[in-house]
C-alpha cells in the first residue's frame, strides 16, 4: 500500500488561511486557559492533599462532599475513580494554611465518624502489617508464643508474621477486604486465628488506596522546575536546529512547537484534565515529537535546496512536503494507534497523558506542514537575503 504517490499538493498556496485557522485555535486556547476554565492544577503544583479511597458500599459523591466540608476542609474536589462499581473515589483538598502536612488526618477521621467506622480493635483495612502481627501476638490464639522468649526474655522471632503478611497481601489484591470468609480462606490463617481476628479486630468500611500530600514549598518548586524543563528544552532544540540547519528553520520549528503546546494546553484544560508532573512529561514528549516532525521536512528542504538553489523557496517547500508526506502520515498514524490505545484502554492514571499525546500528534502533524514551513518562509521574506537586499535598495533609492 502506498499513500500519496507522486502527490503534488500546493501546501504553501493557501498558507494564509491555515495561519488564520491556527490563530483562531490559539485564541480559543488563550480564552480557555486565561479566562473560561483556567488550568486545573493538580496537587503536584498547587500543593494540597489527595486521597484515593475504596469503599465497601457505593457512596454518593455529594455525601462525600458534605462529610469533607463538615470536617472543616473547604473547596475539596471529589470525583469517582476507577471502573464502575469499584466504589473508588478521589478526594483532593487544597493546602492547609500554615501547615506543610496537609489534611489527610482530618478527612479520614471525618469519614470514620460519618460512616460510623470507629470501634474497638485494629481496622484490618487500614493498619499496617506490624499492627496485625502485634495484635495476633498479644492474643496468641495458636499458642505460638511459649518457647520463643529465650533466657534473656527477648523475643527475636515473629510467630504471627506469615498470617499478617497473607492478610496484607489479600488487601493488596482486593484493595479492600469486605468479608471474614476471605480471611479464613487464606492458607496461612488457622481457624483459631481467624476467630481471634473476627472477635477482636474489624473490617472498616473504607481503605486508603493512595495518599499524597504536597506542601506549599514543594508545590511552587515543582511548578518552577516543570516550566524550566519545557522552556529550556525548547531553547535547546532551537539552538540545535539553528546549528544544524539555518536560523529560519529553527524559528519555524520553534513557532510550530509553541503552536502545538499552546493549542494542546487549551484543549487539555477544556477537557478538564488535571495538570501534574506526568502532564509535564507528556508536554515535553510532545515538544520532542513536534520538532521531530518539522525536522524531517526541513531536512528534505535543505537537501532539495542544495540541489537547486535557483528555484523559489516556496516551490522547494511544496516539493519537500509532498516527498515526506507519506512518512509524516504513516509515522503519525502508528504513533496515534499506540497513544490512542492508551487513551481508551490505559486506565484513569494514564488518560491525561494519552490525551495530550493524541492531540499533540494530530496538531504536531498539522503544524509541521502548515506552521513550521510557512513560518520559515515568512522569516525568509522578512529577514532573508532577498529581503535584506531589497531593504538596501530602498535605502539607497531614498538617499
Amino acid at each position, binding site marked *: 500500500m502506498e499513500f500519496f504517490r507522486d502527490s503534488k499538493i500546493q501546501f504553501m498556496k493557501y498558507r494564509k488561511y491555515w495561519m488564520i485557522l491556527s490563530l483562531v485555535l490559539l485564541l480559543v486556547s488563550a480564552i480557555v486557559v486565561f479566562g473560561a476554565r483556567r488550568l486545573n492544577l493538580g496537587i503536584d503544583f498547587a500543593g494540597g492533599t489527595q486521597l484515593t479511597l475504596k469503599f465497601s458500599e457505593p457512596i454518593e459523591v455529594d455525601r462525600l462532599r458534605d462529610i469533607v466540608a463538615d470536617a472543616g476542609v473547604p473547596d475539596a474536589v471529589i470525583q469517582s475513580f476507577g471502573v464502575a462499581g469499584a466504589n473508588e473515589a478521589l478526594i483532593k483538598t487544597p493546602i492547609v494554611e500554615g501547615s506543610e502536612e496537609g489534611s489527610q488526618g482530618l478527612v479520614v477521621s471525618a469519614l470514620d465518624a460519618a460512616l460510623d467506622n470507629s470501634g474497638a480493635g485494629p481496622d484490618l483495612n487500614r493498619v*499496617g502489617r506490624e499492627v496485625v502481627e502485634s495484635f495476633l501476638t498479644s492474643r496468641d490464639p495458636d499458642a505460638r*508464643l511459649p518457647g520463643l522468649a529465650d533466657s534473656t526474655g527477648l523475643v527475636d522471632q515473629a510467630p504471627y508474621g506469615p498470617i499478617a503478611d497473607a492478610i496484607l497481601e489479600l488487601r493488596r489484591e482486593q484493595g479492600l477486604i469486605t468479608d471474614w470468609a476471605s480471611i479464613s480462606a487464606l492458607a496461612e490463617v488457622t481457624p483459631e486465628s481467624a476467630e481471634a481476628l473476627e472477635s477482636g479486630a474489624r473490617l472498616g468500611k473504607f481503605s486508603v488506596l493512595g495518599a499524597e500530600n504536597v506542601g506549599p514549598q514543594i508545590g511552587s518548586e515543582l511548578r518552577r522546575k516543570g516550566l524550566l524543563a519545557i522552556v529550556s528544552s525548547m531553547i535547546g532544540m532551537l539552538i540545535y536546529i539553528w546549528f544544524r540547519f539555518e536560523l529560519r528553520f529553527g524559528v519555524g520549528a520553534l513557532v510550530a512547537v509553541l503552536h502545538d503546546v499552546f493549542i494542546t494546553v487549551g484543549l487539555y484544560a477544556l477537557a478538564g484534565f488535571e495538570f501534574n508532573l506526568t502532564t509535564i512529561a507528556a508536554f515535553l514528549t510532545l515538544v520532542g515529537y513536534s520538532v*521531530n516532525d518539522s*525536522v524531517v521536512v526541513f531536512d528534505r528542504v535543505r537537501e532539495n535546496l542544495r540541489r537547486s538553489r535557483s528555484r523559489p523557496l516556496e516551490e522547494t517547500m511544496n516539493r519537500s512536503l509532498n516527498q515526506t508526506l507519506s512518512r509524516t502520515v504513516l509515522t503519525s498514524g*502508528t504513533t*496515534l494507534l*499506540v497513544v490512542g490505545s*492508551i487513551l481508551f484502554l490505559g486506565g484513569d492514571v494514564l488518560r491525561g497523558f494519552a490525551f495530550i499525546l493524541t492531540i499533540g500528534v494530530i496538531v504536531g502533524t498539522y503544524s509541521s506542514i502548515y506552521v513550521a514551513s510557512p513560518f520559515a518562509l515568512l522569516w525568509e521574506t522578512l529577514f532573508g537575503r532577498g529581503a535584506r537586499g531589497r531593504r538596501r535598495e530602498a535605502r539607497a533609492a531614498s538617499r
Partner: protein
Amino acid sequence: MKRGLLWKGVIIGLVVLVGALSAYPLGEKISLGLDLRGGTYLVLQVETEDALRAETDKDLARLVQELQDKGLETASGTRTSSTAFDILGVGADRAADVSTEAAEFLPGWDYQRRDDAVAFEMKAQNANLIANQSVKQALETIRNRVDAFGVSEPVIQRQGLEGNRIVVQLPGVDDPERVKKLIKNTAFLDFRLVAYPPDGRGAPSREEILGNYGGRLPDDVEIVSGPIRDSEGNVVAEQYYAVEKVSVITGRDLKDARPGLGDFNQPIVNFFLTHEGGQRFGDVTGANIGRGLAIVLDGKVRSAPTIRAQIRDSGIIEGSFTRQEVEDLSTVLKSGALPAAITYLEERTVGPSLGQDSIDQGLKAGLLGMALVVLTMFLVYKLSGVNAVVALAMNIVLIFGALAYFGATLTLPGIAGIALTIGMAVDANVLVFERIREELRHGRTVKSAIDAGFGKALSSVLDANITTLLAALFLFQFGTGPIRGFAVTLSIGIFASLFSAIFVSRWLFDMILSRRRRVDRLSI
C-alpha cells in the same frame, strides 16, 4: 554469505542476547517505582535553624560562664537570632576582656562593640558547617530508625548535595502514619528519682503533691504527669509525681535497647547502658532502694517502679505499652536523638492494588497498540514490514535490558514512555523505506535503491532522533522522580530504534540481496 554479513549478524545476535539476559527474569531484574509496586515516598526538611539555635545557646552559656569566672560577674547574654547573641553588662573599660575571651573560646564567631553591648554573630562558614552536620546526622538517625523498621530496599538520601532535604522511599510500606511518627519522634528519655509519693505510685492531683510540700515545691523538684492506661492501652486517667529535676540517666547513656516480654508476657523495652551510665545508675539505685524511679519519656511519666535492688548496666522500661510501641520505642532510643526537628514537605503513598491496576491496563493498551503498529507496517510495506517487527521487538528487549542493566526504575510514566517509543520506533524505518520507494520509482535497481535509501535517509533519521533525545535529556535534568524514569526509557528507546533501523534493518536487506545474484523486485 559474505563474511561481513556474518559478523554483523553475530554482533546483532550478541546485542539482543545481552539485552535479553540482563532483563531475565523480568520480575526480579526490573525494579518498579513506588507508583507501580506501592509504598511510601517522603520528602522531609531538617529544620537546621534548630541546630543553629542550640549551638548558639551552648556557646553563649559557655562564654558567659567563662566571663563570670574571670571576674566579670555582671556579664549576661541574650540570644538575638538563631546565629547571634549580645553580651550585656560589660562596661566600656572591660570590653577588651570580652574580645580576648571570645577569641580564645569561640573562634567561629565575629564580634563587635555596639552601644553598651558586645554583639556576636556566627561566622557564615561555621553556620554552614553546623547546618550541614545536622542534616548528615539527621540522615544517619533516620537511616537507623528505618533500618530497624525492617523495610526491604529503603532509599534514604539527601536531595542534592547541599540543602536540608532528605528523601525517604519505603517500598511496600502501607502504614505511612506510623513510619512518619517513628522518623520524626525525638524520644527524649530520662530516669528521675521520685520525691513524692515516695513509693512511686503516683498522686491523683497536683494539689495533693503541693499540699505535701506546704504549697511550694522545693527548687530541685518538679511535677510531671503520666497517663494511667487500662489493659487495652487506652488512657483512662492522669496521675502526678514530684520528681527530682536532675536526671539519673538519659537516652544518651543508652548503649542498646530491644523489645522484649516481661514477667506477665507484657511488652517491655530492655535497655543496656554505657559503662559510664551504668556506673552512675548503679550508684544511684544502690543508694535509693525502696524509692520510686520515674521513667520519663518525652515529658510524660511512663512508669515509676520502686527500686528493689541495685541495678548496674541494664534494666527494663515498662508501662502498659503495646508490642508495637515497645518496638518503635526501642528503635527510637537506639538510633539516638534527631539533631533538629523535621517537617514533612511531601508525602506520597500508593497502595499496591492501585499500582497493579495501572500496570495491567498500561500493558494491555501497549500490547494492542503494538499489534496495530505491526499490522499497519505489514499492510504498508508488505514483506519489508518484517523489519518493523524486528525493530519493535529489539526495542522492547533493549529497553528492558538497559533498564535492568542500569538499575533504573520503571515508573508509570516510564510505561507510557515505552508505549510512545513503540509508536515512534518504526519512524526511522519508515524514513528509510519511503526513500527506497522513491529511488525505485526513479528506476533504480533494487541494490542501488537500498544503498541510496539508507544513505539519504541517514541525516533525517539522526536529526529527528537527536531532537527527541534532547527533549529526553532536559526531562532528565529538570524532572523529578517518575519523570526521570520516563526520560530514561525514552532515551533508551531512541538508541534502540537507531540501532535497529540503521544497522539491523540494513543487515536484513543485505541478507536478502546476498541470497541471489540478482534481485529484481523488492517487496516494499
